């Protein structure tokens, strides 16, 4: 494994890129990170490695691209399978982990509360709150979504924690008041070096959201 060449095409504020950073850090894999200028020009390498979606993250392992963050995290877990397992080994637990990570992608990732206005924004906010209610229930009193150990579902959701303040700002609700377990869980995850190193400063995320709404979406 010492001769592996690992490149990550990334974008500083991307929740999806952050998932891969965490997975690589959990496995202590050395890699080269290349920042894409997504709002400007996408690199030739990105267009070549992900011609279908032209999106980051892309993991390039010994020249071969892997796309889609949850697929990349599973790939990392399967290749570097000698340390820090990210998915459970038992099939039913694995299916549950995949189910909840997919739920995060379907229900949290769209972030309509940030990108829409008026009635659409209100509807998106309500859906997000319902989503977090379900996640709060699913987490329960466990330290992590997978139980005792940090894993796949935690990775899929924790990257949004640096976006929580933005959700609160635009959704006009309090994560801590409404979802205390998730709030505690996010703090617990931040104690892991892999997470602390990979997530973005929430203030910078807020600035990005405001900027993006104005410039790219024409919203105030």
């Amino acid at each position, binding site marked *: 494994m010492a001769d592996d060449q690992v490149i990550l095409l990334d974008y500083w504020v991307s929740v999806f890129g952050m998932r891969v950073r965490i997975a690589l850090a959990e496995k202590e894999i050395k890699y080269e990170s290349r920042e894409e200028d997504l709002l400007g020009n996408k690199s030739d390498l990105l267009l070549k490695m992900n011609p279908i979606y032209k999106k980051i993250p892309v993991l390039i392992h010994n020249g071969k691209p*892997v796309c*889609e963050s949850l*697929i*990349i995290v599973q790939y990392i877990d399967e290749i570097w399978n000698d340390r820090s397992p990210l998915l459970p080994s038992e099939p*039913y637990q694995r*299916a549950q982990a995949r*189910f909840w990570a997919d*739920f995060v992608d379907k229900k949290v990732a769209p972030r309509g509360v940030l990108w829409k206005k008026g009635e659409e924004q209100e509807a998106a906010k309500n859906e997000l709150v319902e989503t977090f209610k379900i996640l709060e229930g699913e987490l329960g009193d466990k330290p992590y979504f997978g139980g005792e150990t940090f894993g796949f579902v935690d990775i899929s959701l924790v990257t949004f924690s640096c976006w929580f303040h933005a959700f609160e700002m635009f959704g006009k609700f309090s994560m801590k008041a409404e979802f205390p377990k998730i709030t505690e869980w996010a703090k617990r995850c931040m104690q892991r070096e892999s997470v602390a190193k990979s997530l973005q400063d929430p203030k910078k995320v807020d600035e990005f959201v405001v900027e993006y709404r104005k410039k790219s979406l024409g919203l105030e």
Partner: protein
Amino acid sequence: MANSSSTDVKVLGAWPSPFVIRVRIALNIKSVKYEFLEETLGSKSQLLLQSNPVYKKIPVLIHGGKSISESLIIVQYIDEVWNSGPSILHSDPYDRAIERFWAAYVDDKLFPSMKLINTAQGEEKAAIVEQAIEGLVLLEEAFQKSSKGKAFFGGDRIGFLDIAFGSMLGWLRAIEKMGGVKLLDEAKTPGLVQWAECFCADGAVKGIIPDTEKLVEFAKILVKMKGAPLGKN
């Protein structure tokens, strides 16, 4: 795990659903006997609401009392549990990443664009058809790379992507018929045309994909019920 009684494995589903078809094909590949519990159109059973409280959708696999939802997740579960049977996913992690990518593409891009063909008209319809065909051409390329000259995406035998995409063939044909369009054709997607024949003739698939006529009739019923065919499944 290989010899569960048939009551140990239940599939909550409905005959027209391509997502349910995926689960049934996977169980057939593994020669697993199961009880097929058909949901009634327009209502959801207590068992469905209990076993998939998050989405309340079919398919749900209930194995030894435990429920698993989301068709592609179910297929992977089946592959991992009944691991003495023929493998469904590739053995190499990179190949698995590729087939997972394309399976997600089928769900996120291809099937949605196919469904839009039904409700679109005129110029919009032509644009959507072109988009769907472009997607199929991408899958043709993926097929050529993945099959390496063999019959299936999985090689000699049906694999994960064969199931993910093949399950859609019934509706693909129905949409072609209802829309008066050709989606798979010899000129643009020759590999897939042949693949579709091999897939539908396979022992694990035979009898599972509904006849085109039946699906066309079903689509008409859906239109009457919800005002749009192939609405939320």
